[in-house]
């Protein structure tokens, strides 16, 4: 019998993170899914010197970089799409405080796939022949870099290709739409690289917008792309990706996306943001109050809401989740 893995966010960060670790978040989309609230809790507990593995920079990496707790980062993309440059990340890179190793949006998940399969390397037919191959922020004097994406020979054709190093992050905090108490997950919207990440990371903590009964999982087993057998812990946290969006659940909070990015552009703004939006709550209820109940209603009135319809009948109430958390914490 599977074990109930629901625990609090505070416990999850306490148990599974440490200073200097290689920390990955999923989906690490700049506007959509990401375990942003996990990053807020990393800051609350004073974690530092992180080596961040993010498929793309989200507002979470923007915040952690702005706060100065990330020393190294690896990304395929490092801005906020139509919301512009990620100002906190920009400051960290331009000041030299954070070394940012660049790959592409295919290169990064291929490295996770390599980690997931325990491959020694992954053949690279992209990123080669460009400065993604020749320039290394982790070894800045190795130019053209021989160590980042080394050239290897395809034994079948004799052609020169590249070799991607596999990634196996110490921890992946992965945001999903729905999880059952055991860690079986359903993602609405693109998976991006959450499947590869969930198999590459040494430990996986799930951050779910809603908890569903396992009957839901048994109704749609084909949709369960992250199964409980790879999951250590499950955290229930509504609006976990805020101010980003979660298809079926809530839209992007345009005003806060801009407000947050503007704040992270300066040291003072970052300190004020942390005071108000990282240390400004103590549990789920006060977190939701902080966003504002009217705002929550507005964000929830998403044109994507119909995507959630097939699953609604299995969503557990906060009381049911709280009872399961007691069991999970004792386990």
């Amino acid at each position, binding site marked *: 019998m599977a074990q109930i893995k629901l625990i609090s966010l505070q416990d999850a960060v306490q148990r599974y993170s440490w200073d200097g670790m290689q920390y990955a978040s999923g989906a690490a989309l700049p506007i959509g899914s990401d375990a942003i609230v996990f990053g807020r809790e990393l800051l609350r507990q004073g974690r530092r010197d992180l080596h961040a593995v993010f498929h793309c920079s989200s507002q979470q990496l923007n915040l952690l970089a702005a706060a100065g707790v990330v020393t190294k980062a690896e990304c395929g993309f490092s801005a906020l799409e139509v919301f512009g440059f990620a100002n906190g990340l920009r400051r960290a890179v331009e000041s030299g405080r954070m070394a940012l190793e660049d790959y592409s949006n295919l290169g990064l998940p291929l490295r996770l796939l390599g980690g997931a399969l325990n491959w020694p390397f992954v053949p690279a037919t992209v990123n080669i022949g460009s400065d993604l191959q020749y320039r290394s922020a982790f070894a800045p004097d190795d130019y053209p870099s021989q160590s980042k994406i080394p050239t290897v020979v395809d034994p079948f054709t004799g052609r020169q290709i590249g070799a991607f190093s596999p990634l196996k992050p110490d921890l992946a905090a992965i945001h999903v739409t729905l999880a059952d108490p055991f860690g079986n997950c359903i993602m609405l919207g693109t998976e991006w690289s959450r499947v*590869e990440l969930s198999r590459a990371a040494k430990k996986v903590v799930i951050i779910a917008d809603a908890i569903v009964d396992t009957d839901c999982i048994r109704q749609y087993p084909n949709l369960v792309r992250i199964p409980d057998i790879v999951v250590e812990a499950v955290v229930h946290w509504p609006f976990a990706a805020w101010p980003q969006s979660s298809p079926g659940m809530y*839209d992007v909070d345009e005003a806060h996306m801009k407000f947050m990015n503007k704040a992270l552009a300066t040291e003072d703004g970052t300190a004020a943001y942390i005071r108000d939006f990282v240390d400004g709550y103590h549990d789920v209820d006060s977190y939701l109050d902080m966003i504002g109940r009217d705002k929550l209603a507005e964000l929830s009135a998403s044109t994507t809401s119909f995507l959630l319809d097939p699953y609604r009948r299995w969503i557990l109430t906060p009381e049911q989740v709280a009872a399961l958390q007691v069991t999970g914490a004792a386990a």
Partner: protein
Amino acid sequence: MSQALDYTRQEMMAIATGREVKDGELAIFGVGLSMLAGYFAQANHAPHLRTMTEGGVYGATPVGGLPWGIECNRISTNATSFTSAIDALGFLVASGRCDVGVIGAAQVDKFGNVNTTGIWDGEIGAHYRPPKIRLPGAGGANDIACGAKRFIIMVTHEPKRFAEKVTYLSSPGYLDGGNARDRFGFVGGGPSAIITTLGILRPDPQTKEFQLDGWFPFSSIDEIKAHTGWDLKVSPDARVIAEPSATELANLRKVDETGALRKH
């Protein structure tokens, strides 16, 4: 925008880009204006275009204006498939299946190489030092540049963006020109056009150096040469490009509901 026009330079650029995309093709669009150009083509003359974003969102059309990203709710309302990055950029692009991609650029050079990583004072040098301005990075553009059968670069035509050689090569065009791409065995064919706010540049078939192929009704050869950071050659076939038709403009504005292309 110029007073005499009832469309903006950005709209002209988007429409000229959309015209490059043919019905029935498998197409991938980067975020922002390239996405508008692509979905314009679908709304205008390519109803059977098979569209995808690198976020693995297929079969969708934007609702409520320019999507905030490759995966945001504005592009997730009517999708027929949500998959993944390895599916979109790998199975469908790196495989060689994708017909055409549209990407943006902060800086582009005469061989169609693209920089979206950073701006430095002068050359970077042997030691990789932090940029003066950190840009978004390669994203999916490197993968599209390596894998799509052809790709189109959409870029605002300013001298600082049109360099003899990019400071940092994020996404490969024709590298040093000629057959340089062959050294890496890329499955994709390289950039077929650079479409700007002033005109259209296409590669010379042998040298692969980009030359002027057309100017817009509101621009001129002289203006384009003055805004290009290398000694731009003019193709003997260079001609004025037809301005947007009323239908094209209406179809573009249907896609660009929030007027992202009318702000400049």
